[in-house]
């Protein structure tokens, strides 16, 4: 039982970096960025390849992060310079990344069994119990990234980035190049996503070309769950909510697995969670309308 709990926490924390990235584009920038599926795999692929070749795992993780920054920037350029719609820009990058990821790995998957990863190095350097090494590392990295994101969003550039998602016309009229803000937001977001992919690959000790499939929906589900359960009154609260949402989401998946659902049905379940969350305001509206009609009150009154 305890194993399952630490397992959930590990997963929740490492994936939380990806969820923070999704939050940055989807909520703050109001940009539905599908690059995520590709950039998550990219992070895993880069880190695994470098580690497999005998490289330093910390360096491998940083290079993976930079790969994500670059992938996000490509989507940003497609959207801002060439005026391709946000959805299509992301899909184009994601599709291209599928080939790039296979090139980076040279095959469909890489095993890191018994390899030296940031997790093994961190655990041995601090003489931690290997069972909790990932959780401690995850807490530290998510804490650092979360605080950095919060502080960044409160800077002059950060406010301009928030305003780009909130009211683009207004912030442009105040002298901000909104194209540059979108580029920056997409790069940062996918950098976080790639970092997440790199750490997840090292934790599960393998990377494969399909590890990012459905990642955007998992990210959305986590954001929605966190926001619904913890709230969005302030930026600080929302960032904490999003991280918790990631842990809760992984918990739900673990629970459902214990109840006997096949792991291959996860994606369907995730899609259903997001559908329910996104559809509920509409269903609620119908419900209320129906109730008013029963009472004989017209909705206009």
């Amino acid at each position, binding site marked *: 039982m305890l194993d399952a709990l630490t397992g959930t926490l590990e997963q929740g924390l490492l994936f939380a970096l990806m969820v923070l990235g999704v939050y940055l584009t989807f909520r703050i920038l109001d940009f539905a960025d599908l690059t995520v599926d590709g950039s998550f795999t990219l992070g895993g692929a880069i880190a695994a390849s470098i580690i497999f070749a005998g490289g330093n795992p910390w360096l491998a993780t940083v290079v993976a992060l930079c790969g994500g920054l670059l992938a996000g920037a490509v989507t940003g350029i497609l959207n801002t310079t060439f005026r391709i719609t946000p959805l299509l820009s992301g899909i184009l990058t994601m599709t291209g990344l599928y080939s790039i990821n296979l090139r980076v790995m040279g095959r469909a998957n890489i095993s890191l069994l018994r390899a030296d990863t940031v997790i093994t190095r961190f655990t041995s350097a601090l003489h931690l119990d290997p069972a909790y090494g990932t959780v401690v590392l995850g807490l530290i990295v998510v804490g650092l990234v979360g605080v950095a994101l919060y502080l960044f969003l409160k800077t002059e550039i950060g406010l301009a980035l928030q305003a780009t998602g909130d009211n683009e016309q207004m912030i*442009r*009229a105040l*002298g901000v190049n909104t194209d540059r803000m979108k580029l920056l937001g997409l790069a940062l977001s996918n950098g976080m996503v790639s970092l997440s992919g790199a750490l997840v690959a090292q934790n599960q000790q393998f990377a494969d070309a399909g590890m990012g499939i459905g990642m955007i929906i998992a990210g959305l589900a986590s954001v929605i769950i966190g926001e619904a359960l913890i709230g969005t009154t302030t930026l600080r609260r929302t960032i904490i909510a999003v991280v918790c949402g990631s842990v809760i989401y992984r918990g739900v998946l673990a629970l459902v697995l214990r109840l006997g659902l096949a792991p291959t049905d996860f994606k369907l379940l995730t899609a259903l969670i997001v559908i329910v969350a996104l559809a509920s305001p509409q269903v609620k509206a119908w419900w209320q309308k129906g109730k008013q009609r029963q009472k004989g009150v017209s909705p206009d009154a």
Partner: protein
Amino acid sequence: MLKLIGVSKIFAGNTINEKLALNDVSLSLAEGDFVTLVGSNGAGKSTLLNVIAGVFPPDGGRIFLDERDITDLPEYQRAGAIGRVFQNPLQGTAANMTVEENLVMAWKRGQRRGLRKAIHFKERAWFQEELKKLGLGLEDRLTAKVGLLSGGQRQALTLLMATLTRPQLLLLDEHTASLDPRTAEVVLNLTCQIVNEQKLTTIMVTHNLEQALTVGTRTVMMHEGKVVLDIQGAERKRMSVLDLMNLFEKNSGTSLKSDRVLLAAK
């Protein structure tokens, strides 16, 4: 100060819907001019403001601001010199951000934005003072999200944001039209007060012919993309709303009888 030379703008060019929104408009504003801009729907008033602000480039002509040719500058690069308030109160502020965040973004108008913390103690006190001048109680709501404010409060805030850094040029696009009459008057009075205090060069679009003559220092009328009337000083003082209407009809060769301008004049 502001100089437009032969500016034209065509929408949907080379199609059957082609519309000449601005037809060879030349207009020159002196420092401190407060122009009220009137004209029927589709006369080109908003297009004119948008071309000056750089929302889209003109198809012909040049625009100068303080001797500088700004015709080819993108909108965000002109923004440092031009403050704007839109008709829709939702357009001028970021709803999910707080009052002080909106203000600090406006305070950085046209400046380089860096990785410094945006809001400091000193600014907060100053914002409070500026908000107090609006007389709407906003000084106590610095950390409230702007989406919670009323339309009038948001428009007053937008006005403050547009003038916080004393822009070289202030563009008001029917900024009181979507407010209720009482709030509209409050916002209009605030506008006059701020413009007079800072001696701002201003263009205000309005549909109200009486306002067009009583507010500001100069009245410009447009029709079908052309400036058909431009009066100031004694000539403007002698003008009545009825004269203005007759002049408009004579200049444009059309009757105003069924137009919204007539209704607005009552």
